[in-house]
């Protein structure tokens, strides 16, 4: 059964159809909100939950101009970007990085992928958003600028800072991050 048929059924409140849609697309929805949330799994779950509820609520407005996955993905991104962090969860956002994180240059390529997720979690929120949306999810600077309410130039600048920061996080660096970069990290 294709997505369009399931969408028709889901619009009529068919729980089975909604569940089927969920099973097909839950991975992509969770992936984007998880990466935007950093290491806060509870926050990611909240955002994913919110994304699904918003999507099912908005199903009657889905006209099929774009693919369902694209439409749903955008809702997930918006849910994450506009999601509010609760006071209790906020306290746990910037957890210290453990010693096992550092990698030796010789083994870097092998372990790069394993450490990418953890490195992204260490990025300041503004940088992480742009990096995830551009390099992981494939949005353009114009689209990201629209989502975040900034101009594409700012978005580019944040992306380059984020990539540079990632590079430093993935290789041992004796020097500390500059205070200037810390100041510029949030959009």
């Amino acid at each position, binding site marked *: 059964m294709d997505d369009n048929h399931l969408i028709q059924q*889901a619009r009529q*409140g*068919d*729980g089975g159809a*909604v*569940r089927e849609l*969920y099973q097909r697309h*839950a*991975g*992509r929805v*969770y*992936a984007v909100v*998880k*990466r935007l949330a950093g290491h806060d*799994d509870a926050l990611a*779950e909240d955002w*994913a*939950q919110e994304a*699904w*509820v918003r999507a*099912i*609520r908005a199903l009657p407005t889905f006209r099929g101009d774009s693919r369902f996955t694209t439409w749903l993905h955008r809702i997930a991104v918006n849910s994450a970007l506009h999601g509010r962090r*609760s*006071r*209790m969860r906020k306290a746990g956002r910037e957890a210290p990085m453990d010693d096992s994180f550092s990698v030796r240059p010789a083994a*870097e*390529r092998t372990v*790069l*992928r394993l450490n*990418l*997720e953890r490195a*992204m979690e260490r990025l300041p929120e503004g940088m992480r958003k742009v*990096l995830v949306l551009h*390099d*992981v999810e*494939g949005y353009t600077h114009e689209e990201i600028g629209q989502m975040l309410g900034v101009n594409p130039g700012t978005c*580019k600048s944040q*992306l*380059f*800072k*984020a*990539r*540079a920061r*990632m*590079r*430093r996080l*993935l290789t041992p660096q004796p020097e500390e991050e500059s205070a200037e970069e810390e100041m510029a990290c949030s959009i």
Partner: protein
Amino acid sequence: MQHLDLEQLARLVDEPAEPGEAEHLRGCLVCRRELAEMRAQTQALAAMDDPQVPPSLWAAVEARLLEEKLICAPAGVRVLGISRVHLRIAASLALFLMGGAAGALLWRTPGAPSVATLDPAPAQAPRTASRPASPISAPEVTYVMQTPAPVGGSGARLAMNQGPSDQTSTAHVVAPPRTAPRRATAAEADRAARDLMQAQAAYMGALQRLAAIADPASGNTPETRMAALDRLVQLTAQALDRVPGDPVINGYHLAAVAERDALRREMERDARTEWF
């Protein structure tokens, strides 16, 4: 020599180099290597696998969709008005059903189309000499699995030796495929049954402990109760993955989700009012 900085290199991943940068790159192995690493990093980001979706997420989504009446409740499930007593009764029932479901899963192995028939085994079939006393009594029985008949026989045959008696019983069970005859004793079956009962008892005990921890009357902190409810929701969600249509487990699961949501709202309200 002044190397290109990391932000410049990050830009060069997907933008052309300016003349000065291009000239530097031509003569600098360090920067070329760094740029290659930066590109590899960006490509690896684009190729990352999706993280695993938490099993409990669907339950939370479904509970909210039901709450907002965006989907209809499955037949036989009451979303509201399920008391904790009902929760516990449902938990017990769920255990029996899950036991049954587990049994059904064991016998419905994919790729096992066979239907076996219980027939008396030949007189020379091996028998167990003795077996230890068991709380689950069973006759002295030897089961012999035979390979499927090559033509016309659609399934494996399960032969049962009832000892010297000629008593014959026939029943249809779906048996997993076997490539060679396999013999098991009643003692082994007893042991397996005993293990299963112990596991079920342990599971039930754990569920009841979690429910007791989550009970508002327990005096436990909201955080502790929330942790217990999270675990209950997760466990019942896992059970639902095996038997998604089961109304009892659905009911139990939804009740646990509703309980958890209520506690979460209560905690958020407390956090707002006790800001000092």
